């Protein structure tokens, strides 16, 4: 079950108040699709042994996760980018697993809070 560490709803709550419901839903649906793309590309790069590519996707996820309230995923992405820059493949592999779990938990919490409403 996602925890408070996975997702802070504050950044999106402000935007929810300012947008018509349909526009807000579209905004979040598009975000969830595109944000998941960074993680998928990071995993693909890792499988191909391209540590630099993993680092580039991790760099993007620092903001793509954190600015939307996924602070834990953002911090893990920052650590992953650092590990990739240091060519530390073993640490990068572990961090990518942690990042994947944290991001998926965060996005699930985001969906539950803002999209899975009656």
């Amino acid at each position: 079950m996602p925890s408070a560490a996975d997702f802070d709803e504050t950044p999106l709550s402000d935007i929810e108040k300012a947008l018509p419901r349909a526009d807000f839903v579209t905004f979040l649906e598009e975000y969830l699709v595109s944000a998941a793309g960074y993680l998928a590309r990071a995993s693909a790069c890792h499988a191909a042994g391209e540590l630099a590519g993993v680092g580039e996707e991790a760099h993007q996820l620092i903001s793509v996760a954190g600015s939307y309230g996924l602070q834990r995923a953002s911090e893990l992405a920052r650590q992953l980018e650092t590990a990739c820059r240091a060519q530390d493949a073993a640490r990068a592999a572990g961090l990518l697993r942690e990042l994947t779990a944290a991001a998926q938990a965060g996005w699930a919490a985001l969906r539950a809070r803002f999209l899975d409403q009656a």
Partner: protein
Amino acid sequence: MTETEPPPAERPGARDRAKVILGIDDSTEDLGLLNLILMGAGYSFVGASNPDDACNLVLRAPPRLILLDIQMPQANGFETCQRLRSMPEAQHIPIAFLTARKSRADVKRGLEVGGNDFIIKPFDRDKLLARVHHWTTRRV
């Protein structure tokens, strides 16, 4: 006026609508969020995903502030900042770097190429708006 309403001087209004902010970032997610935050605060926002589009936008309608990502694939933010500063239309526009990294070397380089500020990603709405307010009320 109710107790929850901001005083008139702090309310977004026609004066702020005229304050166009240009965001340059290859992340559509960051541009989308910047757009909603800044529009919600009463600013006008235009986004560019690459330096060429950004320079064209500056020529067409010089913004009051440029928010510039550093790590971009086509040209990094430092190179883009230098290019903007070489344009007469952009010489007096404040440029704030948006970055997920803020090393001492980044700050030094950013100032050398004509940047004015650093805003750290992931960005916090209130801190972002405070910096935007600061820079849209002055020229450099």
